[in-house]
């Protein structure tokens, strides 16, 4: 079995606001394997964005703080990495795409300058001109990437060892080199007429275009893990579909694992291989997307799927889950969903159920592929 790119173990994150402490993420365990797309779905305020921001340590600390747990990224616990060293991991190690395409580009710079900054970060790290993070038992090894050019290969026999590499390191790329590379990335994110777009300012682009630029910026650093925090939520539906199509295409082209955060079940169903359903800071169900969508084994997932609006419904009604998301400064004891759960039993109010394997409906799956944090998963299929 290959090592996971990202292994989150028992992660808990809380926010201290005034006198209250909000337990935004509690006891989350998650593995992301190379090349896999893991979707996290949940309501607003369930902690999914906090989780996304905590992985590259972008969450403001304070008020946020990581209470317990580990974020193992390629063998290094990011929780223990000093904040001043985190920039070495970000970008080339863990890339991120944000929700607000309208404000996520610096208004003062042209598209070219925005993307070049990302390309340069990767380029200088590749060359070893700038330190990238080394640590853990499996350090980020950028030295394996080819940095030699034809010129240095030719001179290698003549000049003493090391001098050629020094020459390569000192080789400064010209602006047209960068321009060519930026154009490549603009084409990669399917931007029409990149020669024009490259010289425009963000305010001259539409929301969908800006989000494509954001994606190009993130991809240009060739991250091994890409976190997409609701990348399509701020866009209107037609643009959303285009960006989603683009992301789906890119997932196959780009050699990165992806953590896809969304509140939209449809988006996750389209993109992800595995899905984690979050409720009130916990992952309450986890498994392959088809499996979870076909036979949910947690009442919340079941009701969430039933509540998803469809274009046409015979009875014309929109179903909802009764009750509200609990206040995370005083979460209910036991299972956090029990106040809204139709099959809650006395034990649900006392002990929080662990995320335990349930027998998958598809016999081809591994017996522990599908997990649910419910004491009575067998009762879930009977729910309306």
């Amino acid at each position, binding site marked *: 079995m290959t090592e996971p790119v990202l292994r989150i173990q028992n992660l808990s994150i809380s926010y201290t606001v005034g006198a209250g402490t909000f337990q935004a993420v509690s006891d989350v365990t998650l593995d992301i394997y190379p090349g896999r797309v893991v979707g996290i779905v949940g309501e607003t305020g369930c902690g999914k964005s906090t989780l996304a921001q905590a992985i590259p340590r*972008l969450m403001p600390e*304070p008020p946020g703080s990581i209470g317990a747990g580990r974020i193992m990224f390629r063998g290094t616990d990011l929780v223990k990495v000093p904040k001043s060293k985190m*920039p070495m991991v*970000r*970008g*080339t*190690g863990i*890339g*991120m795409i*944000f929700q*607000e395409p309208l*404000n*996520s*580009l*610096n*208004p*003062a710079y042209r598209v070219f300058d925005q993307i*070049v*900054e*990302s390309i*340069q*970060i990767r380029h*200088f790290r590749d060359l070893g001109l700038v330190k990238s993070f080394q640590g853990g038992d499996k350090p980020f090894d950028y030295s394996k990437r080819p940095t030699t050019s034809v010129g240095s290969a030719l001179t290698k026999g003549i000049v003493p060892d090391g001098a050629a590499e020094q020459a390569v390191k000192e080789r*400064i*790329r*010209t*602006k047209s080199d960068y321009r060519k*590379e930026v154009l*490549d*990335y603009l*084409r*990669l994110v*399917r*931007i*029409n007429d990149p020669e*024009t777009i490259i*010289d*425009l*300012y963000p*305010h001259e*682009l*539409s*929301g*969908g*275009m800006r989000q*494509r630029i*954001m994606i190009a*910026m*993130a*991809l*240009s*650093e*060739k991250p091994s893990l890409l976190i997409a925090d609701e990348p399509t939520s701020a866009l*209107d539906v*037609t*643009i959303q579909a*285009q960006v989603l199509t683009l992301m789906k*295409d890119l997932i196959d*082209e*780009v050699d990165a694992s992806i953590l896809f955060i969304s509140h939209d079940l449809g988006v996750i169903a389209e993109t992800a291989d595995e899905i984690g359903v979050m409720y009130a800071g916990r992952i309450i169900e986890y498994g392959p997307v088809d499996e979870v969508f076909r036979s949910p084994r947690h009442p919340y997932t079941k009701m969430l799927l039933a509540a998803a609006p469809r274009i046409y419904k015979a009875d014309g009604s929109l179903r909802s889950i009764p009750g509200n998301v609990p206040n995370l400064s005083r979460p209910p004891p036991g299972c956090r969903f029990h106040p809204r759960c139709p099959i809650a039993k006395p034990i649900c109010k006392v002990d929080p159920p662990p995320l335990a394997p349930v027998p998958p409906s598809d016999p081809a799956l591994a017996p522990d592929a599908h997990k649910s944090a419910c004491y009575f998963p067998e009762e879930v299929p009977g729910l309306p």
Partner: protein
Amino acid sequence: MAATPPRAPAQFRESLGTFWRVLRANPLSFLGFLMVAIICLTALIILVAPHLLVPYGPQVNTGSYSRGPSWKHLFGTDGNGFDIYSNVMLALPLDLGIGVGIAGAALLAGGGLGLIAGFYDRPGTFGAAVSLTIMRLTDIFLSFPSLILALAITRALGIGVWETVFAIGLTWWPFYVRLVRGEVLAIKHLPYVTAARAAGVRENRILLRHVVRNLLEPIIVYFTLDIGTVLVTYSTIGFIGVASKYPGPQPEWGAMLAYYQGGGLINTYPWEVFAPGLAIFITVLAFSLLGDGLRDILDPRTRRAFVRSTASHDPPPETPALPSAGGGAAPGAVAAPFDPGGLG
């Protein structure tokens, strides 16, 4: 860390062209630029070769007393027989230097402190303590009326140009601290700063490249307007009579105003007070107009708008897909062909 790629001369020419187009589209700021350019050039000539523009020395008795404006004496003469035009012109380099110098020093000192105080204030760090110290010090200075404080310091140090400059400079920087810190606080929480951080950009570079670039526009506008304010403040102190002596070897507009309006002279010989007043007015106006123009040029949005509005005979490259944020779908985005470009 990252050296920006060398700028091609073509791009420099392009920015120069943009600059010119914005100026052409906005006659008032064009006037501001022109006036500031002429004022600076005049000041330079007076410093280097005064005889080209100034016919008389500061304390030369021309032999005609208290005469109105004429071709020989453009702004007339005063009761001592001094040529007022010559005195006003000789005061220009000093007053201009004071305005630009004090405002510039305050911009650098106050702006730098403001950047530090605004950006490195994460609770529980050493920076937070520094930030707190800077801000309390600023508050102390701001709690005094700056003019009164500058007057008091000048009085304590003694009458003189440099004493006054020092006193005004000492009271001027806190405004920049507060202004810059406010801008930094607003900008550093914007999504593009977080996005830069997520891309692996280091904190210091985020401050210099992403934050400073975006506060440049309000700060430079404030700075150019402030040059006028400093000038007026200095003239006020000069008017009260604690900055410079007039008549004297180095004339100064504020002191001239004070001298010529005193003792009822303003009723009998109004042209005497008119000349230094006009000089202050024109200089302050020039920098105000310049400030407005600079704002238009520094902001990419207005810059582009001006470029488009004036680019009828040299049209910019076709920009097919440019709906604004609220403009709906982008045709370019809709029709994006499937074109797997491949990485890098």
